[in-house]
C-alpha cells in the first residue's frame, strides 16, 4: 500500500450520475487484485473540504497498459468533485487497500450478485475468474437503466449475465434477490460473491441460510483512515453462539462471510 498520484486518462460519463475513471498507475496494476480498493482524496490539493478520502473498489485493471479504473456514482460533494476532473488531471489516492480475494480456492462455478454500484468490485472478480477459465454468471439488479452502458463492458468480457431493473426499463422487471431465489437450483454448486445495498444482502443471507454455498459479501461502511487505525468502518460479525465482535471493513475486509454478518 502506498500514497500515490496518477494521471487521469479518461473520466467517461456512463449516464447522468455514473462515471468510469481510468487512471495510469503501474503500481496498482502490479499489486492490486480482486476485492481491493483505493482511497481517493476528493478535493483539490491543499484543500480540506470535503475532508475525508473516499474508498472505491477497483473496477478494472488493464495490466498491459498500466491502467486501472473505478466506477462511481455521483452522490455527494466528494464524487461531484471527481466527476469534474478531466483527462490529464492528477488523482491523489492510496492503495491497494483491503484483503485480496483468493479465487484459486473456489469452485469452478462463480455466481456474482450485484446491486447498484455494488457491481463495481464484482466486475474485477468476473474478469479475473473468467481469465482463470471459471464458469462465471453475473446477476445484477438496478433501480432503472442508468447502468446500461456497463453491460457493454460485461459483454466484452463474454460473461453470462442477467439484468433486473425495478422499473422494468432494462432486462427483466424485478429484484436481483428474487431472480436468485427463482433460479436457486441452477446455482447449486456455485461459490457466491455479492455486493450491494443492505436490504439485498439481508435477503441473500436468508436465502442462503441453510444452504452449503460459500457466500462472500463485499461490504461498505463510512471510512476515515482506510488503513485500520481509526476503527471507524466497523461491521458487526457473529462470534460464538450469541456474541458478536466489530471488524474493520478496511483492514479485516472488505470481503466477509455473509452468514457471519449481523445487520442491525
Amino acid at each position, binding site marked *: 500500500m502506498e500514497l500515490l498520484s496518477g494521471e487521469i486518462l479518461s473520466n467517461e460519463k456512463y449516464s447522468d450520475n455514473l462515471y468510469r475513471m481510468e487512471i495510469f498507475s503501474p503500481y496498482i496494476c502490479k499489486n492490486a487484485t480482486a476485492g481491493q480498493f483505493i482511497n481517493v482524496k476528493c478535493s483539490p490539493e491543499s484543500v480540506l473540504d470535503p*475532508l475525508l478520502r473516499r474508498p472505491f473498489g477497483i473496477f478494472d485493471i488493464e495490466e498491459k497498459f498500466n491502467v486501472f479504473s473505478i466506477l462511481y456514482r455521483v452522490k455527494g460533494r466528494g464524487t461531484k468533485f471527481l466527476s469534474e476532473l478531466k483527462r490529464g488531471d492528477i488523482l491523489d489516492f492510496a492503495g491497494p487497500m483491503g484483503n485480496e480475494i483468493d479465487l484459486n480456492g473456489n469452485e469452478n462455478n462463480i455466481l456474482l450478485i450485484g446491486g447498484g454500484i455494488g457491481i463495481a468490485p464484482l466486475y474485477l472478480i468476473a474478469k479475473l475468474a473468467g481469465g482463470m477459465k471459471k464458469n462465471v454468471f453475473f446477476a445484477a439488479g438496478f433501480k432503472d437503466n442508468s447502468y446500461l452502458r456497463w453491460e457493454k463492458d460485461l459483454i466484452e468480457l463474454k460473461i453470462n449475465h442477467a439484468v433486473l431493473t425495478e422499473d422494468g426499463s432494462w432486462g427483466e422487471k424485478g429484484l436481483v434477490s428474487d431472480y436468485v431465489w427463482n433460479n436457486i437450483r441452477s446455482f447449486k454448486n456455485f461459490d457466491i460473491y455479492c455486493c450491494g445495498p443492505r436490504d439485498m444482502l439481508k435477503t441473500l443471507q436468508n436465502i442462503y441460510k441453510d444452504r452449503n454455498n460459500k457466500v462472500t459479501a463485499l461490504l461498505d461502511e463510512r471510512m476515515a*483512515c482506510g488503513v485500520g487505525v*481509526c476503527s*471507524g468502518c466497523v461491521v*458487526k460479525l457473529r462470534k460464538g453462539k450469541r456474541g458478536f465482535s466489530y471488524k474493520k471493513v478496511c483492514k479485516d475486509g472488505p470481503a466477509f462471510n455473509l452468514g457471519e454478518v449481523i445487520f442491525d
Partner: protein
Amino acid sequence: MIEQNSLFSYETDTIGNESSLSVRLGRIKLDNPVIACSGTFAYGVEYSQFYNTAILGAVTTKSYSLKPIKGNPPPRICETASGMLNSIGLQNDGIDMFIKKHLRKAEKLGIKIILSIFGQDLEEFRKVASRAADVKERIIAVELNLSCPNVKKGGMAFSAMPDEVEKIVSSTVSILNIPVIAKLSPNYQNLVEAAMAAKKGGAEALSVINTVVGMAVDIETFRPRLGNVLGGLSGPAVKPIALAKVYSLTREKILPVIGMGGIFSWQDALEFLLVGASAVGVGTANFIQYDVGKKIIEGLRNYLKEKKIYNINELIGRLRT
C-alpha cells in the same frame, strides 16, 4: 555554530548546522515537537508503511482500558464541513494486549511511545496505571484520557470535575513514577481549573484539546448520523477553538501544553507553538495525509532555516498581543 541570541535556554544542536527542533515538557524531552495524537495513529506501526514513524517526537497510543472494549455501534464516522465526527466508543483490546503484543512491535521500529490510558472510575485508572508501570522503562510518558465518562459520577467526563482530575492524576503519578500528561476536554467551562488540578496532582504536561462534542442528522431518515447519536468533532473546523483553549492555558503558565486540534500543516503547528504550546499533536490529518507528521517536521525545519532561527524554542509563546 549556534547563535545565542534568544531569551530562552535550549538544547545544544546535535545535527551539524541544522536548527534544533528539540523541545522539553518538564522531564519529557522530544527530538521535535510533533506528536501523533491518541486514537489516530494506533501505535505507529500501520503508518510506518508510508514513512519512518520513529522520526516523530512521539506517538501517543490509542487509549487502553483494563479490559477490552467493543466500542459503539456503527455508523461511527460522519464527515462535516471541514471536519469529521466520530463515536468510536474507545474500542480497544485492553492494556494487557498492548503490553504483550503491540508495544514490542512499536519498539522494533524505534517509535517513542506515550501510552494513553483511561478507566471508568478512579479504581480502573489505578489498575491500568499499575499495569503500565510494568513497562515504564519502555515508554516515555503516560497520557490520561480524562474526556471519558466517569461512570460513578453520572457519566460526565472526568475533565469536567477538577477534584476528580486531581485525584486521578495524583494516584497515577504515584503508581507510575514517570511523566504523566493530562488530556483535557474542551467541552466544559472550567478548563483552567481542571488544568490547575492536574498540576496539583503532579502532571508533567497537558494535552489540549480532545474532540468537541457534536452531532449530525440525516434529513431523509430523521435519524442521527452516528450510531451513538453524539460524537466528537475534529479536523480543521476545530482549530480556532483549539488555539483559543491552548492560549487560555499558556497565558496562565500552568504546565507545558501539547497543543492539538485541526493541525494539518506546519503552518498550523507553528500557530500553536506561537500561542505557547511546547509541542503539537497531529490527529485527524493522519487519516487524510498519511505522511503528514513527516511533512510537518520538514516544514518546521525549513521555516527555521529560512528565518535563520537556530532553535524552535525561540518561537514558543512568541505571540504578540
